[in-house]
C-alpha cells in the first residue's frame, strides 16, 4: 500500500508500507514508477492526508498518557515520552519498554521503542539502531550514539549533506572533532543537537495535556424504578452539563450516558451530533426518545452524562431581561448554521445516519460510481474529496441497477429503433450516440458490469420520453440505465 500526494500534476509516493519498501518503492517516487517496481503485485493506493495523520498522532499521544505522565507527538511518526518516576511501576526500564511496545502493538502499530536519559539519544537509537527495543543506561549515551549515522542527530538535510561531503558519516566522527570548528562550518544547530543527545543541554517537549471530558452524574439513595424520575434527572443533568460546557466555551459532539442498574449490567446510550451544541432543548430532544425506551431492570442507581467528544463554540453574551439572566441568542434568532445542525441531528437520530446523507463527486467515469454518499456526520471531512466532473450529459434519474430491455436495431451496432422496457413498447424517433464507456480493467471489483464496455445511446420515443440505454459490447445485451425526467 502506498499513500500518494499530487505535486505538479504528478502523483508522488508520500508514504509506503514495509512490503512496498522492501520491493524498492521509495518516498518521492512517482506512482507510475512504483507500479513498475511492483509489477505483478496488487497495489493499494490511497491519498496522503497529513492533517489526518497529525490528528491521529495526537490521539495516539493522548492514548499513551496511560503509560507515562508526559507525552508529546513527534511528527510525522514518533512519540516522545517522559518516563521519569515510572520505573517503580514496572520494575525496570526494559520491562517498561516491553510493556509499551506490546500495548501499542495491540492497536495494530509496529513500534520501535528506545529508552534513554535524553530524548535525542532515545530518538536516535529507536530509529537507527538494529534492535526494535533498546534501553540505554545513564552515562552510556556517547557509546550508543557513536556508531549511528549523522542523520540520527535530527539535523536538516543540508547540514547532513555538507557533513557527508567532507566524509563525516557517523556521530562518532563528530565527537572527535573540535566543537569550535563545527560551529564555524556547520552552524550552532548541529552542536545543539549533539548536546541534546548527550545530555549537555536540556530539551523541553510540549506534551499533550490530559483533558478530562466534561461529565456530570447523579447517584440515587436507592434503586429508582420510576421512569418519570429518571427522565427528570437526565434533563437536570443535561442542564448541568450545558452549564459546564458554557464555561469551557465548548459544545458536545458525542454524548455518552451510562445508567448503572441494580444487579444488571450498566446500560449505555450514545448520542452523536453533527456539530457542537450545548443547547439543552436540542440535546433533550435527542435524549428523550432514547431515555423513554430504556430498560430499567430492578432499578437505576446512578446516571452519568459524559461529553466524550467536544468542539469549540463561540462565546455567548448573557443579558438580563425581566429580572432573569438569559442567553442573548434566543430560539427565534438562532444562527442558521446551528438550526441546520439541529435539523440533521434530529433526522439522523430518528432515521439513522445512513438515511441522511450528502453526496460528493468521485473520480470515476462509470456513471454509477461517479458520486459517493456520505453520512452527514462525516461531511466536514469528506468535502475535501471533490474532484473534477466531466461535462458529459447525464440523466436526472439513474436506475439503481440497469434494467434489461428488448431492442430492435436496424444495424447490429447501431442505435435502437424500437425497445420494450417495463412492459411498455417505445418507438424510437431520436437516438444520440454512441458514447462508449470503457471497463475498469485495473479494478479488483468482481462486479461483471464493471468489466464490460458499454455503448450508451440517448433515445427519445414518440411521446417525448428520453431514456439512456446501453449495449454491452461483448454480450450484445441491452439495458436501460436512466431517464431524463
Amino acid at each position, binding site marked *: 500500500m502506498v499513500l500518494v500526494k499530487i505535486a505538479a500534476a504528478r502523483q508522488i509516493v508520500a508514504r509506503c508500507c514495509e512490503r512496498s519498501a522492501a520491493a524498492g518503492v521509495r518516498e518521492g517516487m512517482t506512482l507510475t514508477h512504483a507500479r513498475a517496481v511492483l509489477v505483478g503485485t496488487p497495489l493499494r493506493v490511497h491519498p496522503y492526508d497529513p492533517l489526518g495523520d497529525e490528528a491521529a498522532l495526537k490521539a495516539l499521544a493522548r492514548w499513551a498518557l496511560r503509560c507515562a505522565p508526559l507525552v508529546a507527538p513527534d511528527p510525522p511518526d514518533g512519540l516522545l515520552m517522559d518516563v521519569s518516576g515510572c520505573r517503580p511501576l514496572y520494575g525496570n526500564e526494559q520491562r517498561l519498554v516491553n510493556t509499551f511496545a506490546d500495548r501499542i502493538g495491540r492497536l495494530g502499530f509496529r513500534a520501535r521503542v528506545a529508552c534513554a536519559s535524553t530524548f535525542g539519544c532515545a530518538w536516535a537509537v529507536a530509529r537507527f539502531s538494529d534492535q526494535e527495543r533498546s534501553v540505554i543506561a545513564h552515562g552510556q549515551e556517547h557509546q550508543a550514539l557513536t556508531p549511528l549515522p549523522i542523520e540520527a542527530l535530527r539535523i536538516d538535510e543540508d547540514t547532513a549533506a555538507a557533513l557527508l561531503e567532507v566524509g563525516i558519516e557517523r556521530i562518532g566522527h563528530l565527537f572527535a572533532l573540535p566543537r569550535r570548528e563545527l560551529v564555524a562550518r556547520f552552524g550552532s544547530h548541529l552542536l545543539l543537537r549533539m548536546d541534546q543527545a548527550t545530555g549537555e543541554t536540556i530539551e523541553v517537549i510540549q506534551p499533550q495535556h490530559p483533558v478530562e471530558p466534561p461529565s456530570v452524574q447523579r447517584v440515587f439513595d436507592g434503586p429508582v424504578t420510576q421512569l418519570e424520575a429518571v427522565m427528570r434527572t437526565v434533563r437536570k443533568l443535561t442542564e448541568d452539563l450545558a452549564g459546564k460546557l458554557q464555561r469551557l466555551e465548548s459544545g458536545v459532539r458525542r454524548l455518552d450516558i451510562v445508567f448503572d442498574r441494580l444487579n444488571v449490567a450498566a446500560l449505555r446510550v450514545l448520542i452523536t451530533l453533527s456539530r457542537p451544541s450545548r443547547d439543552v432543548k436540542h440535546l433533550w430532544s435527542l435524549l428523550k426518545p432514547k431515555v423513554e425506551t430504556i430498560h430499567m431492570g430492578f432499578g437505576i442507581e446512578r446516571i452519568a452524562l459524559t461529553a466524550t467528544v467536544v468542539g469549540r463554540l463561540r462565546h455567548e453574551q448573557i443579558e438580563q431581561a425581566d429580572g432573569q439572566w438569559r442567553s442573548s441568542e434566543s430560539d427565534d434568532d438562532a444562527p442558521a448554521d446551528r438550526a441546520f445542525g439541529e435539523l440533521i441531528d434530529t433526522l439522523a437520530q430518528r432515521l439513522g445516519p445512513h*438515511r441522511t446523507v450528502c453526496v460528493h463527486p468521485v473520480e470515476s467515469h462509470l456513471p454509477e460510481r461517479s458520486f459517493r454518499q456520505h453520512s452527514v456526520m462525516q461531511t466536514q471531512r469528506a468535502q475535501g474529496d471533490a474532484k473534477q466532473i466531466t461535462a458529459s450529459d*447525464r440523466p436526472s434519474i439513474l436506475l439503481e441497477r440497469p434494467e434489461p430491455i428488448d431492442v430492435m436495431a436496424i444495424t447490429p451496432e447501431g442505435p435502437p429503433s424500437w425497445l420494450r422496457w417495463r412492459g411498455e413498447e417505445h418507438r424510437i424517433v431520436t437516438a444520440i450516440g454512441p458514447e462508449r464507456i470503457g471497463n475498469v480493467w485495473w479494478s479488483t471489483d468482481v462486479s461483471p458490469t464493471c468489466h464490460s464496455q458499454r455503448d450508451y445511446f440517448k433515445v*427519445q420515443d414518440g*411521446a*417525448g420520453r428520453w431514456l439512456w440505454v446501453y449495449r454491452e459490447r461483448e454480450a450484445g445485451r441491452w439495458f436501460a440505465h436512466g431517464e431524463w*425526467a
Partner: protein
Amino acid sequence: MVGTPFKMKRAGSVTRQQLAEMIEAIEFRRASRPQASVPTGWNGTAETLARGVIHEWFGLTEAPEHFNAAEPRGNGCANQWSPPLLILTHLARQALETVEKTKERWVVWIGRRVWPHPRVLVRDEHGPDRLLLQQSLFVDPPDEASRLWAIDLALRCSAVTAVVADGSRLRMGETRRVQLAAEQGCSLALLARPPWELKQLSAAVTRWRVLRAPSPDSGPRWMIELMCCKGVQQLAARKAVSYSILEWDRAKGRVRPSAQVVDQPDPATASPWQVSHGAVRRTG
C-alpha cells in the same frame, strides 16, 4: 388557517397594531406578511413562485390525449411514475441563488424517488458550479409517517431554503400540516406527486401538471399546466397563462421556455388551446 404570521420572543410583547394585523390575516385567510418569492426565470408563464407555501408538481405523463389521470395503469404501476426532477432541480437552484450568500442555505431532498442524479446538480456554465450539490441534503425516510415528519421538520428549519419532497399518498390533512410548516419556515416547498393523484384534495397553493412533449433537439421538453392557484397574492403568478412549454438547457443547468414550438396542434382536432412563442393559451 394561515398559520403563525409573526414570530415573537414573548407573548406579552404584542402591540395592538400587530394584533390587529393578525386578526385581519385570520379573517381574510391570507398571510399578513408578504412572502418572498423565487423567480423561475420563465418569461411568459409563472415568473415567480411564492415561498412559504406548497407547490405541487405532478409527475411526468405523456401528452394529454394519451393519458387518463383517473387511475394508475395496472397493479404494479404505483411505482412507475417519474417526478419532474429537472424542473424541480431548476427551481431549487433558483431558490438557492436568490438567498443572501452570507446566510446558511440548504436544499433538502426528501424521499429517494426525488433524489436526482448528482451530475444534474452540477453546472458547467463557467466551469463546474457545485453550489447546489454541496448545499444539498438527501433524506431517505423508511415509511410514509417518517417522510411526513421529515418534511415538516425540514420546512420549519430556518437554514433550509427549499424542500423537494416525494408527496405521493399525502392526504388533505397531511398537506395542511405541511402547509403550516412551510409558512413557519418561509422556505420553498416543492412536492412531487404521481399524476393519478391530481384529483385528490390538497392544501397546496399551486398545482402543476407536467406533460412530456416531443423535442426536435437533443434534450427533453415538457408542457406544464397550472391546474390550481389559490390566494390573492399568488394570482400574479398566473398571468392568464395556463400552459407553457419548457426545455432543458444542459449547458446552463437550467430549464427555460422553449424557443420554438413543434407539433402545433391541428385546429381541426378541437384542442382547447393554441400555441404561440413558447406559451400555450387557452382559447375555449
